[in-house]
């Protein structure tokens, strides 16, 4: 049976990005590639900001007269602790913006932001906005010349929106007008940002069943080391104290947070608001602007479902829910698919031993029939023969789909391409061996970067016997080869396939 299903090859930008990650993998291995942990790195920075923030708050004087001096006390008199903590707070904030923006950009470039991922995309944008607002208010708290500039510019922006009452600019016009309450307000917004980000993080991860919220230990130590390095190399310091009788002059400027203020030199406050709102709206609706037709969602064959919950356990997006049995079968539960969350990855198919889940465009029966067909076709060939299971999101040779699973120069191999390697059901691995094939080679996404989050990891667990359903013990593991590579590493994939073939006994 010829398969009608086709898969998209990565575009130029995607290949460039993956090429960069390939280089980094040479240095760090994919287990520690920071690009695979940008979300977790962002959360790690949030923790550092939170913890260091508590210390800074203890010493902070919430008043116009005391704010600057209290920060200076930490920076100068207590440079060995308070000064370092202030620097960690500052640089973790900068790192947060870099990590969060790169995280978003990576998901955009790698086409991981549409359909079922829209909630994460939109909340991600919300988080960046809240982080920037929180950071700006944090800078204002220092009450140095930079803070003075921020306070004045921010006030103009805020009061240009007619819903806000008393113009804050009056408070920042004369020192006599500046009440301590203003600093309470600044601090409240700064604190609120952490709360808002926490809520948004929870929504952001709400549709991700097995979210990675902590970077690996090695990376966590690395991040701390980098922050300390920056803190000692260039400690965070204040500029001169705010002086409302003079215009703030040259100051150390944090472009990660304050990038919009220089635009006020060229735009009115209303134009700047319009620019910001338009930019945020456009970026927010990109998942819908660029959406193509979604693959059909997985379907449950209720009479085959035993309610074992393995599919729910393995689904990376929480798209499968277990409900009380509705058909009188002697099982407690049955699986139902939440279509809007379904990524059509087929990982649940790989988890099901009972043919209860099927992608409409690639059923388990059709897939098994294809494995059987290719195995039979190959069985008559001379020498050692290999059936390859290939993830469509990982490395796979050009033209293999059109050639019906054949690759030029690899006459001893036939390739079965899957939406995600996680849809490889354990019993499928036995089919080639039952048909006289000598080895099975599995090629999936880089570890830590499965396009559907966990497919490769689950499969390794099934083969190694620590994740059900397990591949049967009687299968000779030395005849199963694996390669975990990204879409730009097809040459490496073929090389490893060749090596595996050569080493087969």
């Amino acid at each position, binding site marked *: 049976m010829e398969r009608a299903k086709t898969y998209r090859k990565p575009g130029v930008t995607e290949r460039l990005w993956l090429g960069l990650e390939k280089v980094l993998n040479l240095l760090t291995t994919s287990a520690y590639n920071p690009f695979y942990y940008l979300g977790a790195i962002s959360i790690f920075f949030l923790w550092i900001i939170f913890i260091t923030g508590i210390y800074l708050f203890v010493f902070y004087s919430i008043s116009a007269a005391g704010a600057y001096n209290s920060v200076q006390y930490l920076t100068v008199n207590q440079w060995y602790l308070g000064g370092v903590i202030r620097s960690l707070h500052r640089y973790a904030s900068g790192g947060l913006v870099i990590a969060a923006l790169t995280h978003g950009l990576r998901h955009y470039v790698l086409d991981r932001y549409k359909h079922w991922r829209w909630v994460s995309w939109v909340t991600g944008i919300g988080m960046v906005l809240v982080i920037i607002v929180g950071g700006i208010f944090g800078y204002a708290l220092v009450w140095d010349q930079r803070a003075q500039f921020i306070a004045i510019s921010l006030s103009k922006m805020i009061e240009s929106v007619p819903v806000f009452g008393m113009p804050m600019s*009056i408070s920042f016009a004369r020192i006599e007008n500046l009440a301590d309450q203003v600093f309470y307000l600044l601090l409240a917004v700064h604190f609120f940002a952490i709360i808002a980000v926490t809520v948004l993080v929870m929504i952001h991860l709400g549709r991700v069943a097995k979210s990675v919220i902590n970077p690996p230990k090695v990376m966590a130590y690395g991040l701390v080391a980098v922050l300390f390095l920056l803190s000692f190399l260039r400690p965070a310091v204040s500029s001169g104290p705010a002086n409302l009788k003079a215009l703030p002059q040259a100051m150390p400027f944090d472009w990660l947070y304050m990038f919009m203020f220089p635009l006020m030199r060229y735009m009115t406050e209303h134009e700047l608001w319009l620019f910001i709102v338009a930019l945020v709206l456009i970026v927010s609706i990109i998942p819908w602007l660029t959406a193509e037709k979604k693959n059909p969602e997985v379907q449950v064959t209720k009479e085959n479902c035993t309610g074992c919950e393995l599919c729910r356990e393995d689904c990376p997006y929480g798209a499968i829910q277990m409900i009380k049995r509705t058909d009188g079968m002697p099982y407690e539960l049955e699986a139902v698919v939440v279509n809007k969350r379904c990524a059509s990855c087929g990982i649940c198919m790989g988890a099901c031993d009972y043919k209860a889940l099927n992608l409409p465009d690639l059923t388990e029966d059709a897939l098994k029939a294809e494995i059987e067909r290719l195995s039979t076709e190959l069985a008559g060939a001379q020498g050692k023969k290999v059936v390859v299971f290939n993830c469509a999101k990982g490395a796979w040779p050009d033209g293999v789909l059109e050639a019906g699973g054949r690759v030029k120069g690899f006459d001893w191999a036939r390739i079965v391409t899957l939406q995600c390697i996680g849809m490889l059901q354990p019993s499928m691995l036995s089919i080639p061996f039952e048909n006289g094939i000598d080895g099975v080679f599995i090629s999936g996404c880089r570890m830590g970067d499965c396009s559907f989050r966990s497919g490769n990891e689950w499969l390794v667990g099934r083969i190694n016997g620590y994740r059900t359903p397990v591949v049967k013990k009687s299968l*000779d*593991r030395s005849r199963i080869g694996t390669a975990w590579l990204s879409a730009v590493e097809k040459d490496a994939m073929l090389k490893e396939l060749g090596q595996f073939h050569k080493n087969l006994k």
Partner: protein
Amino acid sequence: MSDKKNVSAGEGTKKPKKPLEIISFIRVTAVLIVFIGLPVLILSNISYSFYSPQESAIKVAFQHTGKRIVDCDEKDLIKEEGKRYRELLKTEKRISMNMGKLAGCPRERFPVVVDLSIDGRTMLDRAYKPKGIKRDMASYIYDDFIISPGVHRIAVAMYDSGNKNKADATLDETVDIKPGDVKVLRFDDASNKLVVE
């Protein structure tokens, strides 16, 4: 090189834990320095000045309450109504305060209008509406202007009684503004005058 090659049989039933690797730590830290450390260090410390050293500013910043549009003394009305209430109380059993009469006393105030000219050039001619749902609170006046340093003649007129023909407060003063200086023009409630400081 891919991450893992062949899958070995019988690796146990638990996912193996990785020890902390010093080489990996050094490599990861190097990558983090390049992709996070350096951008943060550079982008958070670039010197920038929004204002040129050859710029100064004048800010018009104060709050002021305009006069009432209708000259209605709420206190007198309350006193009067209280007196009537007490009188009636002596003869009647069921009486009530005439709240409608009090509500009929409009509280709305005039906007505060500020005209500002610097060296004869009009910089500001704006009416600042009173705050509050009933427009019965103070007006908040804020505007700022970047000007070149030097000697400037500042002329201001403020109107708070709705009559644009007669200013309620005026100021005509020559000020010497140094580079980077900020002069604040405000209404001083104590002296009932406009002042530049």
